[in-house]
């Protein structure tokens, strides 16, 4: 049928041109791209003996994890003698075990592992340690201390605690203050720890009551949906703590859509968009509690020190410590400039 073929031809041509137009639209490069950088390396800067560091992390499917990868890579590039063997991130436990085993077989000098699931990867951590490769365990902790030489991670309980204390101080003297909590994924232990810390901090302030809590999923979409419901349920509140700045983008959208501004909002994790808003000081968000992705850079520093059998400068110990819990800093307008470079997109 000639009619059909002509139609087909037209359709094909338009599909191809639309495709060509669209592929030009996948670019996401800002005009002057600059990766999230951070301050100078903490350890001794002088080049030492060559070290190969193997790095295995989960799939960087959201801002914070992505910043982890960027921080690890850029820190490794700062040292001329460090070679970074980085695996493709995976959220699948079996796949990640395979990747770590590959790195062990390659006989890297030191391993840095951010497990998709800390407990599930304990065994492969043990295997590496037995093979004589020191493991730096990043953030999500292994079940056994034998599986790592050094653990570096954030303080989730402290994050909730510091958010609670900040809100408590801001609402001091306000009778019957109402606080709302927008939590992260409830299946994760870190969410429980953050909520526990927050609740414990609020106990110090008898004038404050936690009136509602809903769990979102670290995504913008879920943040918008859950926040919209929370605002509908609570007609008047004094403060909001949101566990994660990624879902906070959605939460801020819901707040804008509801036309509410009677409260202060405190974020978590430290996304650049949240920091920009804090600096601009034109929305409800007044602070964010940091869960710094710079810990990946610190892990690279520690791995390098381990590979070169050095201690950490600034400490008088001969060896590097077995665990390093990072402080969950509260970032407000006053200290924002110091932290802005660590914000992730």
């Amino acid at each position, binding site marked *: 049928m000639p009619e059909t073929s002509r139609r087909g031809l037209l359709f094909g041509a338009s599909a191809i041109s639309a495709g060509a137009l669209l592929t030009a639209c996948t670019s996401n490069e*800002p005009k002057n791209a600059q990766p999230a950088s951070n301050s100078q390396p903490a350890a001794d800067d002088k080049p030492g003996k060559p070290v190969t560091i193997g790095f295995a992390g989960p799939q960087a499917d959201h801002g914070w994890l992505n910043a982890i990868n960027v921080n690890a890579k850029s820190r490794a590039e700062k040292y001329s003698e460090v070679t970074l063997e980085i695996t493709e991130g995976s959220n699948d436990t079996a796949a990640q075990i395979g990747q770590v085993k590959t790195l062990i077989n390659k006989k890297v000098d030191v391993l840095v592992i951010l497990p998709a699931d800390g407990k599930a990867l304990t065994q492969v951590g043990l295997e590496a340690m037995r093979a004589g490769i020191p493991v730096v365990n990043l953030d999500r902790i292994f079940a056994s201390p034998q599986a790592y030489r050094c653990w570096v991670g954030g303080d989730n309980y402290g994050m909730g605690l510091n958010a609670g204390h900040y809100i408590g101080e801001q609402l001091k003297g306000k009778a019957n203050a109402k606080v709302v909590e927008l939590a992260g994924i409830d299946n994760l232990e870190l969410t429980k720890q953050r909520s526990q810390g927050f609740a414990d901090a609020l106990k110090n302030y008898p004038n404050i009551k936690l009136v509602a809590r809903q769990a979102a999923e670290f995504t913008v*979409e879920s943040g918008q*949906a859950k926040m919209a419901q929370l605002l509908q*349920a609570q007609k008047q509140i004094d403060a909001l703590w949101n566990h994660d700045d990624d879902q906070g983008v959605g939460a801020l*959208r819901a707040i804008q859509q509801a036309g509410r501004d009677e409260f202060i909002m405190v974020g978590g994790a430290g996304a650049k968009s949240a920091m920009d808003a804090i600096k601009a000081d034109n929305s409800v968000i007044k602070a964010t509690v940091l869960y710094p992705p710079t810990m990946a850079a610190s892990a690279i520093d520690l791995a390098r020190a381990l590979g070169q059998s050095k201690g950490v400068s600034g400490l008088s110990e001969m060896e590097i410590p077995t665990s390093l819990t990072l402080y969950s800093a509260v970032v407000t307008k006053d200290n924002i400039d110091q932290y802005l470079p660590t914000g992730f997109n």
Partner: protein
Amino acid sequence: MTQPAPSAQHNGPDKGALAGPSDAPPSKTGGGRPALGLRLDVRILSLLGVLAALILVGGITEPDSFLDTGNLQLILTQASVIGVVTVGMTFVIISGGIDLSVGAMVALASVWATTLATQEYGFAGIAFTAVVVGLAAGLVNGVLIAYGGMVPFIATLAMLASARGLALQITDGKTQIVTVDSVLNLGLPDSYFLGIPPLVIMFAAVTVIGWLVLNRTTFGRRTVAVGGNAEAARLAGIDVRRQRLYLYLLSGLCCGIAAFMLIVLAGSGQNTNGNLYELDAIAAAIIGGTLLSGGRGTIVGSVLGVLIFTTITNIFALNNLQSDVQQIAKGAIIVAAVLVQRRTLRGGET
């Protein structure tokens, strides 16, 4: 919008040719038609009953926050994005297929439409990209299934994986914030038309068009015929392959529209968008009475299914119930809704 009346109207004995999808099975006797009409009514009525019961529960437990216009706007807005996806899914399921890639297509379309390069083209660029990416993904599904001979389950599962992967590649795990004011403003109260959010109007429009297409066009009747018995449809002269291609294209189109709506709602694009939409859309369609094996289903039922889900979520959140309780209760309510429906149906037949 949720009136069951229209489907009853065209069940007169002289309008057999125009009969809706649920009338497809031939009746044994001439007097069977009114009974079948009643059957459809009972199905929709039982859904309305469930919805009314939920509204009662919401009104009693949280009278202050549940029963006001703000909450009605909220429920309808939250239902709108998944609702549009469900309309497309309903067509596909009626035809005997399944589209597991809807969530991934929404994610891909929403991130493609919010890249910095696309945003330079403003409102039109974002809307165009979202719709065309949805259509293109649907086209790939359709070609693979209709002409490549792949099982829908497998073809769309493959699309689910690839589209999510491509979405992640485009965003690089970052949240793409929209800075185009005309798009952002569409989601704010200032642009509500007579108190109705634009997203809800779009949802209503897609529902009405979907209803018309399914019940009043040859395309709709062919969809039901293909789902009821593909071989019989082929022998009756329907180009089954082309019909299937169009149906997956339609599902892709709905996902593209939904992606644009999600961009307006959330003010951003993220590769995690549309998480588990496939399950929500399938569940809503099935609660709405669409047969998973194809050949039967209604748009009104599916939309009611979506509204029931959204209302449940809303009531739980207003009562400050946590996600563990929410999930347990949601599962129980799905089972209860389907059981109630079956029971009423059996009562209506005998």
